[in-house]
């Protein structure tokens, strides 16, 4: 199993000279990350300031936690945090299951040509811009011209539904759209891992009399485990972020749906669009990063307790 997991960092100092060329190759990337990701992080101070262009980022007057107030003063905070977390949980669980299922099916296709065609097809939704996706969804859901109302509900003798003002359907619609959009990408990753599993394991399993399901449980799944853990951990790190396009464009920014479509990103966007307040926007961004950071640490801590080999760090 160990050889399936990503190679761990080489810690031995004596190897340093041996790997020197690799470290040198890493330098530009590190420089890039420092300049683009680490130095700007100091700008986080603006979340505690009354931003003033003339005084600049670091010299603007401090106002403590005042910028954070707007996030927590109404029940919106609870609502958007709930939406963000639950949607992302659903995406992680359902998305992973779906992606693995598709990857296994892909792996079962023996005809090389067909396999390539299917691989390409499942990847297509991932490549479509979310704005276009929102219009595809609209083609299904529009009240007067939409496919569902026009071709299904009416011909079944039912009343058309005003989808864009009926919040109760949207949790399902959003999960469906998101899973449809990203499953291809994840299943290709899982598929590439599956391809790497030594056929010998399967042969041994067959000799031991394992059926297909048992092969899946005892060979395929353990083989996939490190990848599942890594991808899940990374998703959990982003659990406090939401795909802005999915939650803003796909529901066509319909206010009536906001109880079920408002996430932290859309909330901040909507509140800040009119105010243009740098400090408050940064405060929201910081809250998001902080909680995301804590979640990654917690998730990794749990994984390390259960199975230290698969933990990220």
């Amino acid at each position: 199993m160990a050889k399936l997991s990503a190679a761990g960092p080489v810690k031995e100092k004596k190897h340093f000279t041996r790997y020197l060329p690799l470290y040198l190759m890493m330098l530009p990337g590190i420089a890039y990350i420092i300049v683009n990701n680490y130095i700007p992080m100091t700008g986080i101070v603006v979340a505690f300031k009354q931003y003033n262009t003339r005084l600049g980022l670091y010299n603007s007057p401090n106002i403590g936690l005042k910028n954070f107030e707007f996030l927590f003063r109404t029940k919106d905070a609870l609502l958007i945090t709930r939406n963000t977390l639950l949607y992302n949980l659903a995406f992680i669980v359902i998305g992973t299951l779906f992606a693995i299922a598709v990857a296994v099916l892909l792996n079962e296709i023996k005809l090389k040509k067909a396999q390539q065609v299917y691989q390409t097809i499942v990847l297509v939704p991932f490549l479509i811009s979310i704005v276009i996706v929102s219009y595809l969804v609209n083609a299904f859901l529009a009240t007067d011209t939409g496919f569902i109302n026009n071709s299904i509900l009416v011909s079944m003798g039912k009343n058309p539904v005003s989808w864009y003002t009926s919040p109760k359907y949207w949790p399902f619609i959003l999960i469906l759209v998101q899973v449809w959009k990203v499953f291809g990408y994840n299943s290709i990753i899982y598929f590439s891992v599956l391809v790497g599993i030594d056929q010998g394991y399967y042969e041994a399993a067959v000799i031991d009399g394992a059926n297909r399901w048992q092969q899946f449980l005892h060979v395929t799944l353990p083989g996939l485990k490190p990848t599942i853990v890594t991808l899940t951990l990374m998703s959990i790190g982003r659990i406090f972020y939401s795909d802005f396009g999915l939650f803003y464009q796909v529901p066509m920014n319909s206010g009536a749906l906001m109880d079920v479509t408002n996430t932290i990103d859309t909330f901040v966007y909507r509140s800040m669009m009119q105010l243009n307040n740098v400090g408050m926007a940064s405060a929201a961004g910081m809250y998001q990063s902080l909680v995301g950071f804590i979640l990654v640490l917690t998730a990794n801590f749990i994984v390390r307790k259960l199975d230290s080999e698969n933990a990220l760090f």
Partner: protein
Amino acid sequence: MKLKKIMSVILAAAMLTATMAACGGDGNSSAGSASGTGGNGGTDSSVVSGSGSGASADDMSGQEEYTVKIMYFGDAKTEDTNEVAAKLSELTKAKYNTTIDMVRVGFGSYKDQANLALNSGEKLDVISSFGFSPATMMVQNQILPLNDYLDEYAPDTKAAINDLDWKCVTINGNITGVPYNIEKASSFGLLMVKDVVDAMGIDWKSIKTLKDAEPIFEKVRAEHPEMYMLIADFGDIRRPLRIDPLCDENFGVLEDALTTEEDLKVVNLFETASYVDWIKTMYDFNQKGYMQPDAASSTESANSLLGAGKAFSFITNIKPGIEAEWIRNCGKEVYIAPLVEEYSTTANIGLRWCIANNSEKPERAMQVINEMYMNPEFSNIFIYGIEGKHWKFVDEEKGVVGYADGVEAGSTGYSNLAWGAANEQISYVFEGDDPDLWKNLGEFNANAPASVAKGFVWDNADVINEVTSCTNVLNKYVKALQAGALDPETDLNKFNQELKDAGLDTIIQDKQTKLDAWMAENK
């Protein structure tokens, strides 16, 4: 197609400026009222020599050389813009020894780019407040107060704009910018497609309120089932109400802008009788199928729906020349039945020219703004570009211009936006518009009765958290409510309750206190 798109953006932009409700006013005015000086300068280029007279008393061409960078909106090619800037520089070089550098940014990205320029400290002198809240710009020090520069470096402009307008752009004593001389009053009406009205012999003049349109909708729909009777523009529907927004059209308004001085009560718009009445009409229209379906989340512009023959009517703003504007926008002739007569509030003085905090020599920027506002020659080049390349005279005597030969709206390298300049009323009129357009516009502005509270500028700094929370509630309900998609009987109460929970009463109280204090000081 492209023209339509551009025009729809322009229209959307114009609407935005009307609703932006960025105001000013703290009662620091010194110059006597001199309305009209700049207002109806006409298109006679002989005004040129006279316009600079105030400044030319002492010759300023000996100043050290300086480049003023202007940033504003609209589609233009860089080469063409540079050429226009060079032409403008000829004028300013002789007069002030100032060179003009100009950048035009498309509507979609103007605000982002301008914001970046203001925050990054790059060279920038004169900037349009389009899309911004000048109050926020001032708080964040992105722009400089003009108080120190106006009297000395732009006395003509200072005198040309009346005291009340100056108050409207003054925030906590700081003059944020020079207001554009565009339409300075609100008026709304119901626009109807002319050929349908004529063909069916509809008495459109009988429409005095939105409710009057119902029998007409019923008739038209019977004949034109393919048309939506009433549509939204990108999901937005104008409120045909005579409210004074008091710098924020949603939270705390005067129900009647033209109310008396004794009766200045800030109220919750969404509980006022006139608003509820309007919403009920919209709900009724929606129930009867007159409204465009999914209007609240529509991403179609009114222009494209009207142009495509899919719509019959639309609630529009009214100003002189609006019918010609609609012809340009959607290619259809229209009738407009007035629903709300013109009136003016602080919010009507929205768009303004500001001096960026980055400006090294704000006084030189001020001189250029003065030129923009007062000099017809400068203004014409600024708006229309180079003669022969971008435009030509259609009727020189009347001051009417059109696109140059071989150039059209979609292909010009320098799109003309009269309202995007400081003072369109001293420029030429574009083909298709009434040659008296600017005179009519000046009269429209002058004749509109003003709210008693005009000049009052509300600073929301004390209740910014409440405003943010209420904005979130607002976004949830307002579009769907105004498109008639929500039942006013149930959802309006929920809406109001959530607003109250979010702190609306605090906002209203804050506004009322500040308004009362302002009234005591200014009236």
